[in-house]
């Protein structure tokens, strides 16, 4: 089962900016994940700041571990968004694994 979140609704112009914007989206994603769904994060037509992506994806990794990435699909990402996602995911996964390695 898949649920989808269209991020364009949260943009000002073409950019989803503040970290704070991620909080309610993350809550929505957590609920969907808890119900066993995959979640599609649809970046059609938008760019995003590193802070927003960290507030959304980075926080999910710190909460649930890198395995959560297997249940997230990133749709229609620009090259910039892909690069930021890869940066955030790698950094926060590394941080999680180091914290939980004892």
């Amino acid at each position, binding site marked *: 089962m898949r649920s989808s979140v269209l991020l364009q609704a949260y943009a000002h112009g073409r950019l989803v*900016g503040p970290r704070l914007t991620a909080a309610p989206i993350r809550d929505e994603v957590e609920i969907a994940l808890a119900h066993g769904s995959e979640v599609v994060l649809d970046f059609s037509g938008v760019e995003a700041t590193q802070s927003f992506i960290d507030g959304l994806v980075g926080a999910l990794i710190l909460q649930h571990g890198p395995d959560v990435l297997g249940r997230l699909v990133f749709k229609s990402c620009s090259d910039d968004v892909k*690069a930021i996602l890869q940066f955030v995911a*790698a950094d926060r996964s590394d941080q999680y694994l180091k914290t939980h390695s004892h």
Partner: protein
Amino acid sequence: MIIFPSYLSAPSALTTASVCQEILESGDVAEINAAHLRYVDPFGMAMLGACFHEARRRGCIIRVHQLPSGISGYLQRMDVFTGVELVECPTSNGTRHDRSDVLVELTQLCNHSEVGAVAYRLAKAMIGGANPDEVPDEMTGYTTFDRLVEPLQYALNELLENALTHARRGKKDACVWVASQYYPKKDLIRLGVVDDGCGFLASLQTHPKLQHKRHLEAILLALQPRVSCNRDLGLRNDSVNQGVGLTTTCRIAEHAGGRMILASGNAMHSTSGYSGEGMGVYWQGVGIAMEVTRSKLADVRVRELLPSLDDIPPVNLRFE
């Protein structure tokens, strides 16, 4: 009588902070002689805004005398003197022309929820007349407007949100003041973001990389990638930062032919290469000035500006 210098600006950040400190230490009344004032940049306006707000909060009456006519109308237009008495100063004639394509008046920001909208409004204003209805490029899907506005909007989001988040570590009701202007003849955009919070040193004082408790050292540490006071705190009660926002914003400025100047405590640093510490100077919060060449914003690609992750392995992500 406090004397305004000729310039209240980012390159003279320590002088600007020093004047603000005098105002805050004035007690019941701050009498200011502005006869020598020639130029105030957005950084100077934002710092004056924060300073006047705090002084008024303490019950101080602020009087500015003899503003030169060449600058009086402009500063009043920029809403710098809200709540301030102007004595022997030319006053504006009450007609406010729409200059929203080149300047944004001094704006106070107190809520995180306002950051996205304010950042977009400022960025659009600074692009100075690009056509938001332009047909997108067939290959990239972007318009000239997108290419120009997004790096600036990105930087403003990071600066404003950082300012509110970190300022409030030490002061619950800290706010942020922002002003910006586009100078068409020089193709230059200048903006100033100043908060009245706790400053870099208070934010980073327990960071293991801070060797000496000096404001300049804290500023330089804050500019290093992946340095943050709260990278590792809990999720629900605190915002978790990667420590990358300020670094990326500096790189946006540099790649757009510009620079950033940061001031906090008794110190300042410019990314163009100079730093300074002032004896007896103190600004409690953080002041940041950003300067970029408008036409070079279109060449900025954020993906090229992210810090290196050194030995951290990449992870697999599912893209569609």
